[in-house]
Every structure is written in structure tokens, then in C-alpha cells.
């Protein structure tokens, strides 16, 4: 995960939230620190993402589903077809 440090990443959590921020650090159990974090909320039926600024966040590893490096250009030219797009489900592992 070293190569993702200081890059803008998108993190999907186990409850289906999608946060975007700059990865500052991580550890063995994939606890992560994000700065300039925003939560990207997709409300079904809409054409755009809603971005909620959150500030700095620590996300516990157990609630991380996946972390991806964001291609900014693609993100800015994002097109959403509201007829097909849905939110991300949560993981029920308890």
C-alpha cells in the first residue's frame, strides 16, 4: 500500500460509504489516515454525487472494504446514468 501514500484515494467502507481523501498512512491491519477527506454520497436517481467535506479521518481496518487510487480526470468527467446507478451495499458479516 506504500505507493498509495500521499495520493488521492477512494475508500469504500464495510457499511457502503465511499470516502475520498489523501492517504497519509496505514498499518498492518489496514487502519488508514485520510486528510482532506470528503464523503461521496450517491443518492439513487440523481445525476451527480453529493460531496460532504469531513476533514481528517482515521478509518479502522476492520471497516475497510477496498482502497483505490483515483484518476482525477476520470472523476471530474464522471457521468452517472440515474436509471442504472445504485449505491454500494454494506457487508453483513456479523
Amino acid at each position: 500500500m506504500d505507493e498509495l501514500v500521499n495520493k488521492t484515494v477512494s475508500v469504500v467502507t464495510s457499511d457502503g460509504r465511499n470516502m475520498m481523501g489523501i492517504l497519509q498512512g496505514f498499518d498492518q491491519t489496514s487502519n488508514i489516515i485520510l486528510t482532506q477527506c470528503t464523503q461521496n454520497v450517491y443518492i439513487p436517481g440523481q445525476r451527480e454525487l453529493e460531496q460532504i467535506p469531513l476533514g481528517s479521518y482515521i478509518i479502522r481496518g476492520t471497516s475497510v472494504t477496498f482502497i483505490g487510487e483515483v484518476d482525477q480526470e476520470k472523476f471530474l468527467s464522471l457521468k452517472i446514468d440515474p436509471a442504472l446507478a445504485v449505491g454500494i451495499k454494506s457487508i453483513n458479516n456479523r
Partner: protein
Amino acid sequence: MLFFSFFKTLVDKEVIVELKNEVSLKGTLHSVDQYLNIKLNNVEIVDEQKYPYLGCLKNCFIRGSTVRYIQLPAADVDTDVLQDATRKEHQVNKK
């Protein structure tokens, strides 16, 4: 540790990882670690129409605990060897 070694033999192959939240990610396997956390390069979301906002990812790190299935390239898996290896590991663990 058998499956850790097995996944290491699949590095640089194309796989589809299905997660427990029903998102599927297709990409080139870059690396695996002891927790079966997976790193994929050249990621595509399989059902991109459903999750267009995830389509802007270049590479990703997937936490092993959230994986449900991994679809493997059939040509790159020798099931006979894998079966023998699982039996051997089972024998060792019994002793």
C-alpha cells in the same frame, strides 16, 4: 499458507474479485499478502453502469476479509497439482 502460495503463482494474471458487497472488480493481480489482501492494477468495475462513481480507480487494494469469490483464469490453474497440494497440507496438519 497454501492458498497464499497459490495466489502468488497467479501474479500478473487477470482475475475478477467478487466482494461481499456484490461489487466485482476485474484487474491484473499485482500482489497478495498473508491475509489474502489483494492488489489489482488496471482495475475495471464489472458492472460499471451500477457503480459509475467507482469507475475512476486506477489500481486498488482489497482487504482480504471482504472477498467472497475470486474468478481465476482456467488456463493458469492446474487443478490436479492444487488438489495434491491441499491433500498434502491436510496430512501435515493432521500429524
